[in-house]
């Protein structure tokens, strides 16, 4: 029995979590006693005896489950255990609940975990729509409503969309570039295990006295600095989610730069790889700003520092500047990997090379650069420097240019292509182009200062964000999941159910979010549990479509689970793709390749006779010698 508590695993994880939490409480009580304070502080915003254990307990869990074992042995100068690959690859379902270093296992862990958070976040959205179906109070009070929409947004952003993209890229990116794994497999495992901790922490805030955090996902000071205890759960959870995505991005960058197969130059990389390269650049350089902003709020709450305390020389607006310096790039973090997925899906199912491949890649880089210069367009009505408004408006309009390049390149790819929709993935990709374009255009409208002032904090904003995040990001996620489901599981999904899911999702999305534009322009404020009775009919309609949207997601869940278990065996290359992940078995073997493939051409050479992207080991060597040894930087 003792052995169970010394081996890495769940027993040790629970033990270490409890010990770390107890240590945290003890530390706070001890320090407060030494300083002559009462042992337990229970002011509205403080609670250090809860907050310190909240930081330490997840670290205890990570230690217990075994994320740090190798590094600790190394650090203490012990001989490291030779890598026997025993924690690599999944041989039964139990291996998915352990620290695993295989990028494919981690990818599946990511996808499944973040999808569970998607369902929980969706459930919260259903509660929000139930409350808003009629004017007046229906099922929850105003305060719970604030918690609901805050938690909904935080779950969807930090533990669904961002890690879902990280998960899918984790699975396919090393395969696409011909790498046997990610550059730092143990760091990859650590990144994954921080994700459920962050999600659970967000949800656990419902148990805190005063309810879950309710200052919105933006957590503006001074609302957040004086909010009840639940806000601290958000501040700390974001740190774990942030570290997780920074380490994953670092891993992607190093993998892409140093581990490409022979012949895989930068200009031969699939656009999904380009998309994750640019997203990772954003994550690495922007995410520290939200860490910083939430540290500051936490310090103001716990130590009563004065970052945002006006009376003591603090600056309230500075929170918004620091927050949006991350959170505007974050919206590109939430869409660029989706752009990559759409490029893959469109090209394969339209049987044409990507139109303007290099410009597509450069547009991604352009978005990365420009996205650092637009943050204050979220703050036109915040009382910031007025001279900053027009420059921010101009850069905001400018960033529509590279985005437009991508839209037109997809249309150029489709033009005269042999479009077929035998896969639901293609349906979602086509729908995404339309829906995202509408969301993008309302984004340009919001970039205009006068229009933005008119619709600030109305449902127009809600409509815009959901058109780009649901109609954009989530549609690309579904496209990607349908596209790579056969590769990940080795099974085919039920196409008929996929179609029902697609049409239900499309109608639900448009029905829910299009009317929000209208009620928003008429002045219905967002983030309020009640509204003027004149908006009642529209809101009932919106709620009905929202319930439809929620219900059809259950079809997707059923389809995926049943197909994973009982679906017909998938061929290696069901869609006729050319990139390397389609040239290996479905699912790929534990180490991806017996021998690293050689890349001899572009990734999208559809319809070009004799064109090859990569040559797998053991295949014929009838490749021109000039093509064989091109190695990128």
């Amino acid at each position, binding site marked *: 029995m003792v052995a169970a508590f010394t081996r890495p695993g769940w027993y040790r994880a629970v033990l270490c979590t409890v010990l770390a939490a107890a240590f945290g409480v003890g530390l706070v009580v001890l320090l407060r006693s030494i300083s002559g304070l009462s042992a337990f502080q229970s002011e509205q915003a403080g609670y250090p005896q809860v907050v310190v254990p909240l930081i330490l307990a997840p670290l205890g869990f990570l230690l217990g489950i075994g994320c740090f074992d190798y590094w600790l042995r190394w650090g203490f*100068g012990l001989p490291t255990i030779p890598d026997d*690959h025993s924690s690599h690859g999944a041989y039964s379902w139990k291996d998915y609940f352990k620290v695993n270093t295989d990028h494919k296992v981690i990818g599946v862990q990511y996808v499944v975990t973040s999808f569970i958070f998607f369902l929980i976040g969706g459930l919260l959205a259903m509660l929000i729509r139930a409350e808003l179906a009629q004017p007046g109070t229906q099922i929850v009070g105003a305060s719970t409503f604030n918690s609901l929409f805050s938690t909904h947004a935080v779950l969807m952003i930090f533990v669904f969309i961002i890690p879902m993209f990280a998960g899918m890229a984790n699975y396919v990116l090393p395969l696409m570039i011909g*790498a*046997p794994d990610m550059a730092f497999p143990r760091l990859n495992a650590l990144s994954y295990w921080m994700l459920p901790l962050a999600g659970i922490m967000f949800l656990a805030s419902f148990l805190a006295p005063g309810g879950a955090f309710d200052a919105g996902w933006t957590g503006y000071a001074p609302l957040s600095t004086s909010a009840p205890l639940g806000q601290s759960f958000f501040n700390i959870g974001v740190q774990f989610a942030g570290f997780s995505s920074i380490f994953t991005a670092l891993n992607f960058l190093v993998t892409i*730069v140093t581990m490409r197969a*022979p012949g895989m130059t930068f200009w031969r990389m699939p656009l999904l790889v380009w998309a994750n390269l640019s997203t990772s650049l954003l994550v690495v350089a922007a995410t520290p700003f939200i860490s910083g902003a939430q540290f500051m709020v936490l310090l103001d709450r716990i130590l009563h520092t004065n970052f945002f305390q006006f009376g003591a020389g603090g*600056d309230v607006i*500075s929170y918004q500047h620091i927050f949006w310096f991350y959170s505007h790039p974050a919206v590109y973090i939430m869409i660029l990997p989706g752009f990559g997925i759409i490029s893959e899906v469109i090209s394969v199912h339209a049987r044409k090379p990507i139109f303007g491949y290099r410009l597509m890649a450069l547009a991604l880089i352009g978005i990365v650069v420009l996205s650092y210069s637009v943050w204050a367009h979220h703050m036109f009505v915040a009382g910031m420097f007025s001279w900053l408004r027009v420059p921010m408006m101009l850069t905001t309009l400018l960033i529509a240019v590279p985005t437009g390049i991508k839209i037109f390149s997809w249309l150029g790819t489709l033009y005269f292509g042999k479009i077929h929709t035998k896969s639901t993935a293609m349906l979602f990709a086509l729908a995404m182009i339309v829906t995202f374009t509408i969301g993008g255009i309302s984004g340009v409208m919001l970039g205009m200062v006068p229009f933005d002032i008119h619709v600030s904090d109305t449902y127009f904003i809600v409509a815009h964000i959901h058109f780009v995040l649901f109609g954009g990001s989530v549609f690309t996620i579904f496209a990607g999941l349908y596209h790579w489901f056969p590769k990940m599981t080795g099974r085919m999904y039920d196409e008929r159910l996929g179609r029902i899911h697609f049409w239900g999702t499309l109608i639900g999305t448009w029905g829910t979010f299009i009317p929000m534009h209208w009620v928003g322009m008429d002045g219905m404020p967002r983030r309020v549990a009640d509204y003027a009775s004149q908006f009642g009919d529209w809101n009932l309609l919106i709620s009905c479509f929202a319930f439809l949207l929620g219900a059809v997601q259950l079809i997707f869940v059923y389809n995926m689970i049943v197909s994973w278990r009982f679906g017909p065996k998938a061929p290696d290359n069901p869609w006729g793709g050319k990139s390397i992940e389609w040239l290996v078995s479905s699912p790929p073997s534990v180490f991806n390749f017996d021998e690293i493939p050689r890349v001899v051409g572009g990734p999208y050479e559809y319809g070009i006779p004799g064109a090859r992207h990569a040559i797998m080991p053991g295949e014929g060597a009838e490749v021109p010698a000039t093509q064989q040894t091109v190695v990128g930087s």
Partner: protein
Amino acid sequence: MESASVPLPHGAGGHAAEHEHHGPPAANQSSRIDRQVLGILIFIISEVMLFGSFFASYFFLRVVVNPAAWPPHPFELPVAVAGMNTAILVSSSFTIHYALEGIRKGNKQAMKLGLALTWILGMTFLFVQINEYVHIGFSARTEAFGTIFYSLTGLHGAHVFLGLTLLTAATIRAFRGHFDKEPEKHLGVEVPGIYWHFVDIMWIIVFATVYIL
């Protein structure tokens, strides 16, 4: 950073009987830069941006709010003590460089000496810093100035602590005879060394901004 010390899965593990597989194929090295060196450099970009968020706050509190007195009236910063501390930290950058140059030439004694000196200098820096906090006379709650002074220097102190943790591991392994001349055999010194240089340069920026500017 921890990941710096992670060797790759390589070669056959010798446990083929347990699971029916051999090890992964060696990855193609598509860039001249070592992946662990690149990893720590990218991590440092993140760290710079974390400092950037606090510097942003600093300039908001000082320039935008523009308080009547900076620092608040009765207090002043011990520039001389901090300047001496700066000299200590800067010299530790030279000692870590000495250690790295030593092991590059295969001189393990020089490496041990360099690492031990760096470690001692780093600890001295932290000790002086904490001593400064004790005697400085204001707290993190003393207006916005106290807040941003403690958070910038404290954030840097936390990074010194992290760097020292990495150096402790490197020093322990050095004294156990783990590193050697070949480039891939002393990454455990090189990577913490790069991080230590970052901590050092960041201190110069913090010192110049908070104490002198």
